[in-house]
């Protein structure tokens, strides 16, 4: 680099201001990088929560929720880190980088909420889960929420298939009702909003719903068949084998 004092005034002015711009850009890129990394970590941990929750068909619910709670505490630590990067208008500025993690987290806790309460988690309940001392750690936009819960069908589907395998036939009915509600809700919202990613999630929702409806159908048909030949007290797990 040449000596500043040897430059023409106009060049010197350019070098000085562009050095400032460089520092500003560097700070911005670094912050963006940290947010992407944090968001990725949150995604990974949220996926672990989902897997822990899906073990509910094998383990006792108490143990499963305890495991999930332990992981949730770790996620909250990550959110505390993320929160420092997303103060004020930075929350909107870096939403695009932060949103994958936030969505995955919402997916995990909404699966959790579904397993516990058979209901769709609300935005307030999401914020409540994300709060420390009554203050949510990060801003969750309506888009984050909507995209998070619209990822649920795949997981609900997995849970449903596992549950039938274990002879929990009631689960199919609950899952089916829940997914139908999700489908209705999401289609309704899609008519007005400008979220392009939402459209990409619809095929998954539809195929999940179709799978569960098919499963329910074969269960129903099998049951009436068994009724008609007078076999009433078939072992549940055996019946599950027939279906799958």
């Amino acid at each position, binding site marked *: 680099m040449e000596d500043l004092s040897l430059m*023409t005034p*106009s060049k010197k002015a350019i070098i000085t201001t562009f050095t400032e711009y*460089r520092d500003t*850009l560097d700070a911005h890129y670094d912050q963006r990088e940290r947010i992407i990394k944090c968001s990725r970590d949150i995604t990974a941990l949220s996926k672990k929560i989902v897997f822990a929750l899906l073990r509910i068909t094998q383990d006792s619910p108490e143990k499963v929720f305890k495991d999930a709670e332990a992981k949730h505490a770790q996620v909250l630590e990550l959110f505390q880190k993320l929160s420092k990067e997303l103060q004020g*208008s930075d929350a909107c500025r870096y*939403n695009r980088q932060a949103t994958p993690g936030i969505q995955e987290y919402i997916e995990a806790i909404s699966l959790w909420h579904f397993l516990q309460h058979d209901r769709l988690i*609300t*935005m307030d309940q999401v914020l409540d889960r994300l709060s420390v001392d009554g203050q949510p750690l990060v801003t969750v936009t*309506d888009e984050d929420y909507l995209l998070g819960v619209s990822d649920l069908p795949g997981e609900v589907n997995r849970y449903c298939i596992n549950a039938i395998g274990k002879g929990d036939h009631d689960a199919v009915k609950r899952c089916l009702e829940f997914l139908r509600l999700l489908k209705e809700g999401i289609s309704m919202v899609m008519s007005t909003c400008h979220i392009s990613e939402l459209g990409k999630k619809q095929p998954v929702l539809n195929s999940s719903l179709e799978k569960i409806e098919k499963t329910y159908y074969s269960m129903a048909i099998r049951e009436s068949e068994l009724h008609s030949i007078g076999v009433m007290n078939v072992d549940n797990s055996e019946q599950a084998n027939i279906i799958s």
Partner: protein
Amino acid sequence: MDLQVFIDLQDKFDQESELFESVKAATKELDRTCRLASAKLSKAHSLPKDRLKEVTDAIKPQFATIQQNIGELAKLITPVTFYKYKEMWTHKLQNACALAVFAIYLEEARLATPADVGEHLGCKVNMTNEPITEFVLTLDEYLLGVISLFGELARLAVNSVIVNDVQRPQEISTFASELYSGFQLLNLKNDVLRRRFDSIKYDIKRIEEVQYDLRVRGLIS
């Protein structure tokens, strides 16, 4: 029931939809004005240096309209919606910025500062990472606007020769290479700024070719 969640969301999106449409309409207006201004400003390419004032004077009313357009747009935007909708206007604002940068170069043969651009466009500028409190022109938009100047400079170098001004390519070359050395200081990531930066060298090359042609024929020393 659970469906209420979606009904509430739908209401919110409905309201936002109105804002979305207004922002779209406002950016469309800005785009229209910029196209018109761009057409007027490009007359500079066909005039000798001493008649540039005709162009820069003629463009002033266009900047007044641009200011109005940006003012309308800015009125719609709050700090919360700024980044959410930025994509919708950022290209048009970059164009407007490029126009201001070119106009100022034509008038004073120097690089427009962010403050100059802000004054021409009638909006606040934020060249830092500080939180924004209102509608602003951001650093990346300013830099992208400035990069557009290289294309104009390359054209101007060629067109100077057409109007028999063999000295101006030399001035343009000095200015362009000083400005380029500024851009070379930046640590760019793989984004739009990087891609546009990569195109600068082709404009520089065009300017150098003009100089070569003039020198090889002994038209300049």
